C-alpha cells in the first residue's frame, strides 16, 4: 500500500462502485438540492411576479406576466447597492481579521505548549454565551459614549468578538487532528513555528479554514440586531437592516423583498462555487504522511 504523497488519489477514492450505492447518492443529492434551493427558487419566482398574484389560492411557479419592477425598485427606490457595499466592507474585514486572529490563536493553543489552554478555551466560550439581546443595550451606551455609533469599526469589533470563539474552537479541533509527527519532523529539520504554521498546518487544514471563513462571513453578512442598534443612516447600514427598512408602516412589499434576497444571496453562492473549486477539490487525503 504505497500512497505517493505528491499525488492525491483521484480515480477510485470515495465513490462506491455498487450501483445501488450510486443511485442512493444521486437520489439523496437531488433531495438535498430540492430541499435547500426549493424555497430560494420560489423566491426568485416571487420576485418576478406582480404582488397581486402572490396571494391567489393557486400559487404558480412560472410567473405570468413577468415583471422586473421589483428589481428596479430595490435599486432605484431603495438603494440596495449602498447597503450591499456596507455589508461587503463590514463582513469582508470581519472575516479577514477573524481568520487572522483566530487561526493564530488556535495554532498557539493547539501546538505551542500554553499552560491552561483549556481554561482559556473555556473562557473564550463562556464569555460568548451571554444572550446577545442583553449585550446590546450596554454596548450601545458604551459605543455612543465613545462616539462609535454609525461607524464601520463598531460593527467589525462586535462581529469579531461574536465570531472568534467559533473560529478558534473549530480550528483548534482541526489543528489537533493533524498528526504531531509531521510537526516534529519539520521541527527537527529546523523549521520555526511560524513556518510550520504557514507551510504545514494551514495548508493541511485548509478545508477547515475556508469553511470557518465562509461561516464567519455569512454570520457577519446576516447579522441584524447589532447592525440595527448601532447604525442609523444609509452610509453604514448593512443589508439585513436595509431589507427590514423596505417595510412601511404596515405594508410589506413582498416582491421587492424577494428580489432583494435574490440579489443578496446569489453572490454568496457564486463565492462558494469559486472557492470550492479552488480549495476543496482534490486536496489532502493521501498527502498526509503516515
Amino acid at each position, binding site marked *: 500500500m504505497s500512497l505517493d504523497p*505528491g499525488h492525491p488519489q483521484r480515480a477510485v477514492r470515495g465513490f462506491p462502485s455498487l450501483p445501488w450505492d450510486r443511485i442512493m447518492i444521486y437520489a439523496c443529492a437531488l433531495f438535498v438540492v430540492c430541499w435547500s434551493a426549493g424555497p430560494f427558487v420560489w423566491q426568485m419566482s416571487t420576485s418576478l411576479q406582480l404582488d397581486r398574484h402572490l396571494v391567489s389560492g393557486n400559487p404558480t411557479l412560472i410567473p405570468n406576466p413577468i415583471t422586473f419592477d421589483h428589481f428596479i425598485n430595490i435599486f432605484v427606490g431603495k438603494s440596495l447597492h449602498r447597503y450591499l457595499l456596507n455589508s461587503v466592507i463590514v463582513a469582508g474585514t470581519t472575516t479577514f481579521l477573524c481568520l487572522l486572529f483566530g487561526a493564530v490563536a488556535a495554532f498557539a493553543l493547539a501546538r505551542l505548549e500554553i499552560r491552561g489552554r483549556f481554561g482559556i478555551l473555556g473562557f473564550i466560550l463562556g464569555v460568548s454565551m451571554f444572550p446577545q439581546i442583553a449585550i446590546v443595550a450596554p454596548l450601545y451606551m458604551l459605543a455612543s459614549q465613545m462616539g462609535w455609533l454609525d461607524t464601520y469599526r463598531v460593527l467589525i469589533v462586535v462581529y469579531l468578538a461574536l465570531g472568534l470563539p467559533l473560529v478558534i474552537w473549530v480550528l483548534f479541533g482541526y489543528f489537533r487532528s493533524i498528526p504531531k509527527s509531521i510537526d516534529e519532523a519539520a521541527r527537527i529539520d529546523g523549521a520555526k513555528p511560524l513556518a510550520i504554521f504557514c507551510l504545514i498546518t*494551514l495548508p493541511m487544514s485548509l478545508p477547515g479554514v475556508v469553511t470557518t471563513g465562509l461561516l464567519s462571513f455569512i454570520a457577519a453578512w446576516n447579522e441584524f440586531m447589532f447592525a440595527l442598534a448601532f447604525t442609523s443612516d444609509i452610509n453604514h447600514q448593512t443589508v439585513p437592516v436595509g431589507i427590514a427598512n423596505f417595510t412601511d408602516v404596515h405594508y410589506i412589499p413582498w416582491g421587492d423583498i424577494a428580489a432583494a434576497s435574490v440579489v443578496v444571496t446569489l453572490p454568496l453562492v457564486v463565492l462558494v462555487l469559486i472557492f470550492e473549486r479552488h*480549495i476543496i477539490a482534490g486536496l489532502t487525503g493521501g498527502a498526509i504522511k503516515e
Partner: protein
Amino acid sequence: MPKKLTDGVGKPDGTGMRRRDFIVASGAAVATAAVGALGLPTRLYAQTGRTEITFASPRFFSTDTTQQLVEAYNKSQNSVHVSYVELPPPSSSTEVHQQLVQQLARKTGSPDVFTQDIIWVAEFAAAGWALPLDSYFGADEMKAYLPGVVQACTWKGQLTAMPWFIDSGKLYYRTDILEKLGATVPETWDDLIETAKKGMGGDVRFGFIWQAKQAEILTCDLVSFVGSNGGSILGPDGKTVKIAEPEAKAAVQLMYDTIHKDKITPADVLTWDEEPSRRPFTAGQSVFLRNWSYVWSIAQDKTQSDVVGKVEVAPLPHFAGKKSAACLGGYQYGVNASTKNKEAAIDFLRWLSTPATQLHFATEQGFVPTRLSVFDEPELAKTQPFIQKLKNVSLGAIPRPVTPKYPQVTLILQSEVSRALVSGDVEGSLNKAKAQIEKIVGA
C-alpha cells in the same frame, strides 16, 4: 532547506494560485475597510450660524417623504438646521421603542425632536423624557386639533406630545357581495355574523378577518371589541382594572365565537397581523375585514388587488344598543426634555404641525390628520375620500389604556387573551389578566 515534507502537501494540481487569490482578495478587503473605517464624516456637516438639531423618526413611507420634509424645512429658513435620524420601520414597533428609549434615556439632548407612538406618550412623560409643551402651545391653539388626540397627548394635565396623525380600525367590506345578498352594511355584530355567513362560499372562503397574533395588534383589536360593548380595559383613573367585567368578557367571547362557533373567521388569525390578514381580503377571499387605513389605497391598486372598485369602508359594528368603537393609533411628535435647543426644536415642531404639512401627509399616505380644519380640505376629498366620510369614526376613536406602565399591561393582555382565544376559557384568562394587571398598575 528541506522541501521533501512540505512538497505536495495541500497543493492542488499545479497551482498555488488560490493562495495568491486569497491574499489579493483579502488585501483589497482590508484596504477598503481601512478607507471606510477612517471614520470619514458622513453625518451632515455643521452649517455655520445655524442651530443644529436632530429629528428621530421611523421612515413611514418607502419613498423618502420624511427626508424631503426635513429638507424643505431646512430650505425654508436660515436659523435652524435639522438632521434626520432614521429609526427602524414602525412595523417593528418594539424596535422603534427600543431605539427611542436607548437614546432618550441617555439624557444627552439628542434627538431634539422625535416621534412617539401614541401608546408611549404616558410612559415617556412619566419618565421625564418628553418636554411639557403647554408654555409653547396654549389651550386655544390646541382647540384646532381633535380633542381625543389632545387628551391622549396629555399626561397628568400637561401636554407632552404634539398631535401628528391618527389611525383607527375600520371595517372594510365587499360592495359586490352585499349587493348580491341585498344586505345593508352591518351595524351590530349579530348583523355582521349573519351577513358574513350568507356571503361565504366558493372563492370567498372567509366571512370576517381580523388580527389575533400575540402582539400589539391583538390589544388594538381587543380595545375595539371591548369598546363596542361599552366596556374598557382600565378605568378613566388609569388604575381600576375592568378587563374582567361582564362587558369585556362578552366581547372576548365574541372574538372566540367568530373563530370557533360561527366559523366566519379562520383560526389562522391567531398568527396574523396586519399584512397576512390584508392579503386574503384584497385577493377577494373574504366578505369583511377589520384593519387600519392603509388598506384602502392598496385595495384600489390594480397591481396589488383583485377587488378594485368593490371595496368600501364603514365604522366597525357594535353590540346592540352600544356604540361603535375604533382603536386609536398613530404617531405624535415630542420634544426631548433634555434638549439644549428648545427654541429651535419648537420652531421645527410648529412647522411640522402646520395645516399644510398635515394635508401633505394625509393626501400622500392616507394618514388621518389631527387638525380639524384639514378634514374639510377639498384636496383631501379628491384623493382620500373616505377620510372625510369617516370623520366621525376618527373623532370617536378610543385610546388603549393610558398608563405609564402600558408596555407591561399590553404584554399581559396579549398573553391572556391569546390563551382565551385558543382554549375558550374566557372567564379564567380574563380573571388572571385582571390579577396581574392590578399588581402592575397598583390599584
